[in-house]
């Protein structure tokens, strides 16, 4: 048992230089006298590549089916069944990953970071729904997106929200998108994925805080139609803008609107626009004045937003692990903290120089200062444009599905008497 004694001597020696010693060969591998065969470390492979191709194919097929069901077949039931299938496939079976919403992070990181390139199927997940929306409206939201599906499935007692509240809450989605781009571009975090409110259900697992958020979100979804899609979804913001110029889209009536008002309250997402009445002359003049003032204020909003962005940049920057570490190490060096956390322990034992860490920190801080100011300015512009829109008179003679807001779920179809007529005629043929 000489070896045991050797071990103990070494134990004492090693404990003296434990921090710096890392994977040093203290005990040379033995020469075996028996016919012992040394084992190999097993390396089970990742998910086979062809299965990502299956996912993209299912996405493409589902998008085609959704567009056909919504626009050609005009079938709410069909969309609902497709939606449930996609909830099971993309949500519970594929565990909600990768999804088009989260792909924003990969695409941004790919654009801003030289070392990372988004894999082909993530790029497909990002662009396919956008292209389909450009042609057919937001059929992705209606039938394919698992996050939309889980909210749509629990919507039982929809409340109507006032238009101003809806506009104001929608700014959150813009902010979420802008921050997601900022954090992904600086390689800090994919916040869309980190704070996905429905992943807890898809995986039957999450940390306690996310469970609370997830359950709260689902409870809200019972009363407020698709709260995530309307007020938070960063991808929804993109789809809305593309939907504005889409080639085809949901029309409540298959042919002509007879102004029967039956569809007026049909939409739980506040996406049916009523015909407008001409503003009184006085209102019109006031609207024009307000418009002029607001246009004058555009630079103010942008500058104000940029200033706020600039101010909060150091706070946002701590989302990056290197910045958080550098801040902590600085405080430890200054003697504010006497104890060390895991991160600073790891840093000290890595042998990296303080100057190197501080230099990396400065670089990230600069990135964040610029990026955050840009996000702030952009948010200012978005806010002022949403105000501007309320000061313009939009002329409309029929009941129409809103180009951006309509998620193409097809709920309004059955409210329309013209649709029922159309369906009867079709059944006869």
């Amino acid at each position, binding site marked *: *048992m000489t*070896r*045991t004694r050797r*071990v103990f001597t*070494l*134990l004492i020696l*090693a404990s003296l230089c*434990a921090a710096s010693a*890392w*994977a*040093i*060969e203290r*005990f040379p*591998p*033995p020469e*075996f006298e028996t016919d*012992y065969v*040394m*084992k*190999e*470390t*097993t*390396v089970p*492979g*990742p*998910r086979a590549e062809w299965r*990502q191709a299956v996912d993209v194919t299912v996405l493409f097929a589902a998008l085609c089916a959704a567009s056909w069901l919504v626009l050609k077949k005009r079938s709410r039931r069909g969309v609902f069944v497709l939606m449930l299938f996609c909830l099971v496939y993309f949500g519970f079976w594929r*565990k909600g*990953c990768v999804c088009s919403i*989260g792909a924003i*992070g*990969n*695409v941004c990181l*790919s*654009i801003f970071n030289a070392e*990372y*390139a*988004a*894999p*082909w*199927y993530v*790029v497909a997940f990002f662009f396919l729904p956008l*292209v389909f929306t*450009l042609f057919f409206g937001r059929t992705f939201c209606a039938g394919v997106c698992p996050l939309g599906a889980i909210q749509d499935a629990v919507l039982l007692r929809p409340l109507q929200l006032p238009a101003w509240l809806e506009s104001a809450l929608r700014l959150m989605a813009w902010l979420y998108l802008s921050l997601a781009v900022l954090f992904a571009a600086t390689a800090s*975090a*994919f916040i869309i*994925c*980190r704070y996905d409110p429905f992943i807890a259900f898809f*995986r039957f*697992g999450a940390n306690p805080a996310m469970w609370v958020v997830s359950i709260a979100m689902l409870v809200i979804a019972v009363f407020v139609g698709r709260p995530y899609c309307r007020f938070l979804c960063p991808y929804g913001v993109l789809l809305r803008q*593309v939907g504005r*110029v*889409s080639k085809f889209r949901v029309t409540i009536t298959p042919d002509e609107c007879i102004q029967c008002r039956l569809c007026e309250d049909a939409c739980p997402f506040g996406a049916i626009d009523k015909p407008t009445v001409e503003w009184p002359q006085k209102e019109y003049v006031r609207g024009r004045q307000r418009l002029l003032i607001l246009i004058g204020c555009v630079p103010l909003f942008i500058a104000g937003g940029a200033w706020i962005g600039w101010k909060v940049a150091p706070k946002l920057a701590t989302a990056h*692990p290197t910045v958080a570490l550098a801040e902590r190490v600085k405080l430890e060096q200054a003697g504010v903290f006497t104890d060390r956390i*895991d*991160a600073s*322990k*790891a840093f000290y*034992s*890595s042998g990296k120089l303080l100057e190197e860490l501080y230099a990396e920190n400065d670089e990230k801080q600069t990135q964040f200062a610029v990026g955050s100011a840009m996000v702030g300015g952009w948010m200012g512009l978005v806010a002022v444009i949403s105000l501007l829109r309320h000061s313009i008179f939009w002329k409309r003679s029929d009941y129409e599905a809103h180009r951006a807001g309509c998620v193409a779920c097809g709920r309004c179809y059955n409210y329309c008497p013209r649709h029922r007529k159309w369906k009867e005629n079709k059944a006869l043929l």
Partner: protein
Amino acid sequence: MAQQNPDNLNRRKFLREGLFGGTLAMLGAAAAAISAKGRKTEYVWQIDPYKCIGCGNCATHCVLNESAVKCVHTYAMCGYCDLCTGYFVPEPKALDTAAENQLCPTGAIIRTFVEDPYFEYTIDEPLCIGCGKCVVGCAAFGNGSLFLQVRHDRCVNCNECAIAAACPSQAFKRVPADQPYLLKDGQ
């Protein structure tokens, strides 16, 4: 108003068509630009064993209830020690397989006698929770042949790995799927 309408409509239609075409072209250009850079293969998450400090976050932060991170063993680096500091608690009562002597909270390391004085240590993966206690023990006083790795038969490859976000030593990184492991090689 009435005679303005057709003209108005045409102008609107023209604008819409223009915007549609513009957006389509923009999407196409963006997709082309990004896929020009795109790799054929995907990325998976892996731990750089030389950065890992065995803090234990892997056991608790994975989205899976049983972490996708497990301890692995490079046998070629192992000293086959009788007193394995990855296997035994500090100052064990006896060098045997009794639970109170084992460092592993789940008893996931199998100790088998090879020949005097050598013992082989194998990880029973279904039992391993990826806490890294043995990793720390082995690295502190042994050869560092035990280390943590993301096991790809378990990993669901989240777009943002929850453990990576909590890793204090930034040891988690995306690696190409055709080389999904960062093993210590024993050289």
